[in-house]
């Protein structure tokens, strides 16, 4: 019975596909899974927008939206109707075709990432060996659509926002990749299902998640930082810094196209959180051995929501970085730590079992963290701000 529940979506798909002639079954199965993914994540996006607004409101001691429906849960419906009925304005001097294609390209590439994410036991759309590579290839192509949007709008704010976005995304993509490489080094596979399988083991009732190792924890933290920057989330939301750039690369978008950008941003957050939990938090595996009877997809989506909660929490806490701080942080802190982490992961692999590798690996990472942090902040003065005026 429990196993049935675990595999309920798989059974459902097979049962539905079973009504079709044999030749069509494969294609129908794929289409069914795609429809499920494309339907599910926008629904989660709608839920997240209202949760985010309420959460940030509570952080600022406000109520947040509470007018549409009980506790404001129908707010996304109102927002959706609003964005659908708004006029779709294309600036006269904009490049119409590219302007039209940019949001579509963004949404499509963002959704492509889900193709390789295992959302439960046997619940992966296409199980390819180079799943991680595919994911990062798709993630990197969102930069193209961001730049398309910024450039085609023929607006200086849009273009500046797009330039910032591309600079930031490329810088942090390096960190994102390097922090995930450690997982590939230890698992020995690029397949995301294999990575989850490797973490789905228990000793003393505790799982073998990679976050519970020194290199895994460091890798996870670096991954989280890079993922936040990659999805243009606060505190790395410079590309859409509303105090400087109106709204960044989607300044000239209105109505449904704007809603598509908004959707793509949140779906990208889901997707990158999903990848993060797959790589470091054991994907769909349970956090304790005695909880393995709970359906695997519940764990996956639970982890997804916890990471979304952390995203919202960070947004409510941290102020936006400056461009130079952003770049310094990427190249002078995150990147060296990622490179060192590669070395530590190798050390971990070849030191064999035992307590010694825990001590050595933790010590190296801690020393590097404290050292780089100290070196970076050494010259900073955190006194009262001083002003210098032009003579």
């Amino acid at each position: 019975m429990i196993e049935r529940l675990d595999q309920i979506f798989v059974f459902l798909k097979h049962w539905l596909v079973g009504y079709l002639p044999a030749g069509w079954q494969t294609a129908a199965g794929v289409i069914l899974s795609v429809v499920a993914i494309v339907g599910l994540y926008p629904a989660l996006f709608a839920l997240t927008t209202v949760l985010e607004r309420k959460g940030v409101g509570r952080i600022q001691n406000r109520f947040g939206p509470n007018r549409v429906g009980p506790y404001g849960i129908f707010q996304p419906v109102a927002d959706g109707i609003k964005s659908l009925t708004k006029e779709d304005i294309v600036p006269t001097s904009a490049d119409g075709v590219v302007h039209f294609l940019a949001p579509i390209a963004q949404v499509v590439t963002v959704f492509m990432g889900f193709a390789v994410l295992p959302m439960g036991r046997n619940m992966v759309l296409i199980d390819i060996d180079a799943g991680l590579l595919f994911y990062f290839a798709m993630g990197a192509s969102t930069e193209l659509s961001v730049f398309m949007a910024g450039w085609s709008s023929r607006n200086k704010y849009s273009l500046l926002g797009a330039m910032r976005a591309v600079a930031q995304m490329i810088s942090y993509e390096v960190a994102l990749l390097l922090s995930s490489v450690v997982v590939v080094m230890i698992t020995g596979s690029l397949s995301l299902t294999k990575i989850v399988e490797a973490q789905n083991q228990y000793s003393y009732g505790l799982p073998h998640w990679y976050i519970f190792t020194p290199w895994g924890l460091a890798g996870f933290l670096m991954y989280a930082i890079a993922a936040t920057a990659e999805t243009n989330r606060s505190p790395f939301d410079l590309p859409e810094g509303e105090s400087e750039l109106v709204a960044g690369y989607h300044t000239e978008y209105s109505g449904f196209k704007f809603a598509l950008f908004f959707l793509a941003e949140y779906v990208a957050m889901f997707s990158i959180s999903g990848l993060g939990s797959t790589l470091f938090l054991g994907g769909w595996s349970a956090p304790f051995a005695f909880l393995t009877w709970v359906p695997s997809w519940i764990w996956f989506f639970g982890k997804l929501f916890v990471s979304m909660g952390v995203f919202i929490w960070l947004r409510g806490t941290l102020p936006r970085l400056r461009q130079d701080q952003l770049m310094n942080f990427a190249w002078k802190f995150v990147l060296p730590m990622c490179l060192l982490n590669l070395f530590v992961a190798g050390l971990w692999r070849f030191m064999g079992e035992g307590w010694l590798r825990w001590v050595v690996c933790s010590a190296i990472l801690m020393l590097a963290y404290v050292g780089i942090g100290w070196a970076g902040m050494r010259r900073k003065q955190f006194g009262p701000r001083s002003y210098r005026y032009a003579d």
Partner: protein
Amino acid sequence: MLGEGILKGLAETAKNFAGSFVSKERLTTVQYPEEREPLPENSRNFPFLVYDGTDWEKGLRCVACQICEKECPPKCIYIEKSKDKKPDYTGKPQIYPAKFDIDISVCMSCQICVEVCPFEAIKMNTEFELATDDRFGGLLLDRKELARSNEYYHQIHPTEAAEVDARLAEEKAKAEAKAKAAAEAAAAKAAAAAAAPAQTPAPAAVKPSEGEPKQ
């Protein structure tokens, strides 16, 4: 150490998040249409016309002197004088406004009309829920819509209204005293006139009536 500040900040926001569910003091938001805070006494929005008594048309203090119409910077007041007269609060016959319109879409709530009115007839209202779906007629208030009783004025601006009432009462008393004096003088004159014809010829009777007010 690096990242200490972030952790401190996260703890602070977490405290806010949890605290807002527990303590009512943290949530300072007033849920407006259901809950309302009392308006401060000196709040003001758009002008209204004060009337005494119960009948708004009879009791309107305005005498259509048109000072407010002339002083209004955005020219949102329109007054038409009446042809006939009606008694004011002292009983003196006065002109009244046959038409008194304020376009509150033009009004800028400067209160100059209130400052210049010598009859305490126009005051500032505190009503602010004036939204309407009629852009033109809905925001053009005529004298009936503008009329509010003196009791209402006491309700919204108690201190100011008390001062105004005291001033009006004083003026009324003065006017009454004057009227009484005038009546007495008239009575004295009448008595004198009654006594006079026996002694003096007709031309002499005109002189004292001219001289009387000076005494």
